[in-house]
């Protein structure tokens, strides 16, 4: 025997030693690659967020004019606001009131704004400069003034300090979003308007005030400065209500049935495969389906959040079913066996023992599914939700847009200098909503999580 046991041991140790260094190197390499992947991902996300924040945050503050407006009785020549007299029928009163309102619409409200601005500037404004003067203020303000007066006619003859939105181009000029050194022919505002805007800004009459318009107004094209997210927000809210009301009960019920009750055979296998496939179907396909079935066949209205909600329900269902099944499957069989062992029926087992334990997972899955639906744009474009809507929808059947679609629409607005920032602001709002939904999901999971 030339090779002793000792020699063999030595040999084995040497082999291990040799390969050890190599294996350590491998491990190090893998760790470094993993870390690099995470860092790259995080950097890209950080760049995205920072660029959106840098562009979007300034849009939450908007050039606003604070001036004293005199409700001049010479301009507002209007009968007294009709009051309901006794014995008058409701319809007769409404008719009288509508007539008065149309009268109020004919008053030259712009003249009140003009003279208020003239006072603020402190110079005589010639009539040929009127156009330059009007370019300062958002064109929606004359309607705002009318609505204010219609609500409170006692303002007649009074002077009130009002907050008026400056026009979009003034906002762009004040914030320096357009190159201030460009010559006149390339500027959106005339030299006179720019000079006035600077003067009013220096005098503190134009200030960058927090933009409530962004949250309280609907989209606007005739006065871009007043464009807001209110309509889109309500549209998204209605859609999410439809999605939650339909996809959560349907999805959870199907998942429970498939997981706990359905026999395991080729049919259920087929169903399972199809649900998984459905989750991978591009969302735009659901939009096409929705357009032809819900609108073409069932005759539901165009641009309605109800249809949007139905389409998004189809899209969310598989996500919720898969998440619910996974969370049911993660409940240890011992729980079921114990329940069955002490004489519970299968329904009792599922509803009294399994479901409560699976609830955190189901909630998380549902909320993530809904958050995904909230951010979905493509299918909505096909059912007419990319329309310009200037009403806040009161029901899920009224025309509306949705938050992600509003971002898409603003992104396409021709007034680039103003809407680039506005678009980023809308993205921030939408991201904020998504992050809070995700935070809610995490919180619920933490709160109800059971460990065994």
């Amino acid at each position, binding site marked *: 025997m030339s090779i002793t046991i000792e020699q063999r041991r030595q040999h084995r140790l040497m082999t291990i030693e040799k390969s050890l260094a190599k294996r350590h190197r491998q491990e190090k390499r893998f760790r470094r690659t993993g870390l690099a992947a995470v860092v790259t991902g995080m950097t890209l996300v950080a760049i995205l967020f920072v660029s959106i924040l840098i562009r979007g945050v300034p849009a939450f503050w908007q050039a606003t004019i604070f001036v004293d407006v005199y409700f001049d009785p010479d301009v507002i020549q209007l009968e007294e606001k009709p009051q309901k007299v006794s014995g008058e029928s409701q319809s007769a009163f409404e008719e009288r009131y509508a007539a008065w309102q149309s009268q109020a619409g004919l008053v030259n409200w712009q003249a009140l704004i003009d003279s208020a601005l003239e006072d603020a500037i402190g110079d005589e404004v010639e009539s040929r400069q009127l156009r330059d003067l009007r370019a300062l203020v958002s064109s929606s303000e004359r309607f705002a003034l009318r609505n204010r007066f219609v609500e409170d006619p006692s303002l007649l003859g009074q002077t009130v300090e009002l907050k008026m939105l400056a026009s979009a181009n003034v906002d762009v000029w004040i914030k320096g979003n357009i190159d201030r050194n460009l010559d006149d*022919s390339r500027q959106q505002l005339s030299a006179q308007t720019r000079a006035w805007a600077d003067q009013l800004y220096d005098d503190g009459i134009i200030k960058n005030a927090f933009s409530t318009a962004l949250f309280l107004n609907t989209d606007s094209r005739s006065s871009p400065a007043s464009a807001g997210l209110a309509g889109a927000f309500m549209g998204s809210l209605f859609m999410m209500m439809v999605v939650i009301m339909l996809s959560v009960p*349907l999805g959870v019920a199907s998942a429970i049935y498939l997981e706990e009750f359905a026999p395991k055979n080729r049919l259920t296998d087929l169903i399972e495969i199809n649900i998984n496939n459905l989750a991978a179907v591009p969302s735009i396909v659901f939009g096409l389906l929705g357009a032809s079935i819900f609108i073409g066949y069932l*005759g539901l209205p*165009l641009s309605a959040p109800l249809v949007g909600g139905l389409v998004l329900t189809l899209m969310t269902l598989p996500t919720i079913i898969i998440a619910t099944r996974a969370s049911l499957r993660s409940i240890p069989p011992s729980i079921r066996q114990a329940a069955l062992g002490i004489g519970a029926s299968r329904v009792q087992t599922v509803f009294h023992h399994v479901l409560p334990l699976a609830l955190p997972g189901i909630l998380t899955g549902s909320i993530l599914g809904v958050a995904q639906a909230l951010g979905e744009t493509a299918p909505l474009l096909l059912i007419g939700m*990319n*329309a*310009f809507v200037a009403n806040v929808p009161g029901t899920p059947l009224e025309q509306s847009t949705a938050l992600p679609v509003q971002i898409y629409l603003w992104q*396409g607005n021709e007034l680039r200098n103003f809407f680039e920032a506005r678009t980023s602001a809308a993205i921030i709002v939408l991201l904020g909503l998504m992050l809070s939904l995700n935070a809610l999901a995490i919180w619920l999971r933490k709160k109800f999580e059971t460990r065994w």
Partner: protein
Amino acid sequence: MTMNVTKKALGVAVVAALSAGVSTAAMARETIQMAGSSTVLPFASIVAEEFGNTYSQFNTPVVGSGGSGGGLRQFCQGVGENTIDIANASRAIRSGEVANCNENGVNDILEVMFGYDGIVFASRIDREEFALMPEHVFKAAAAQISQDGQLIDNPYTRWNEVDSSLPDQEIVLVIPASNHGTREVFEEKVIHPGCESIAEIEGDACNNLRGDGRIVEIAGDYTETLARLDAQADAVGVFGLSFYDQNRDRLQVATVDGVTPSLETIGSGEYPVSRPLFFYVKGEHLDVIPGLAEYTEFFLNEMVSGYGSPLEDAGLIPMDDEERASALEQFQARTVVNPE
């Protein structure tokens, strides 16, 4: 089993909720709904807002996009409340579209012309200026051109090869895709006149554009064209006058036939590339959807679409009083578009 009963009940509830939705949808729609040309959309939206603000008894109409062709296709889907009332178009309706409309029961197509729009060539402000002729554009864009009496594949890669007066810049032309009405005007007013100068190419062959990546077709709106110009500094884009006008700080406009596009030169017809804008009203809906006739008449009001109006500020080239009066008269007489 209890489970099955629960599920059945749930199913019934869902179907009930759905059918409730359908039956409420069958109630009268009270808001005008339109779709179509993205060139007309800004104008129509402004009128819609002013209309909603002026008439408290009517809702603000809803304005969708989808291009002239897309809008007219929706318009011709039929009569009823889940079809649109108005199609906005940056070109006149085609006879095939009228036939399609009639087939689906839309017979009263009322055409309303409301102004003009100019189509301009613009490039980035930090590049050279262009003075284009239709012939230049055709030579830069065509699939084939003639050389020594023979048709050859387009050899040009730089503008100064097309004509020595043009800048030494790479040829990249960003044009609207065929879903846009603008494309038709581009072909009719620029490509075809340019094509006439070459005897060997005639008729439809003029529309053959080169496929080597120097022509970029944009199916979206003008912001997409602008983004192209941001990415490719040498590119020349096709825009509507109003879009260019609101982005003068980034774009410079090219002259065509030596004329600079502006409200005046387009209004007078001096600038060659312009077109009338239309919207089409569904006559069958006039008595069903409240405010449809009022909206149309409001649109044609001088205060709304005439000189000094908000639409002119937004870049529309207004019609003169006579044209506007005749458009209004034509609508009030309910003149239907003929199917040929």
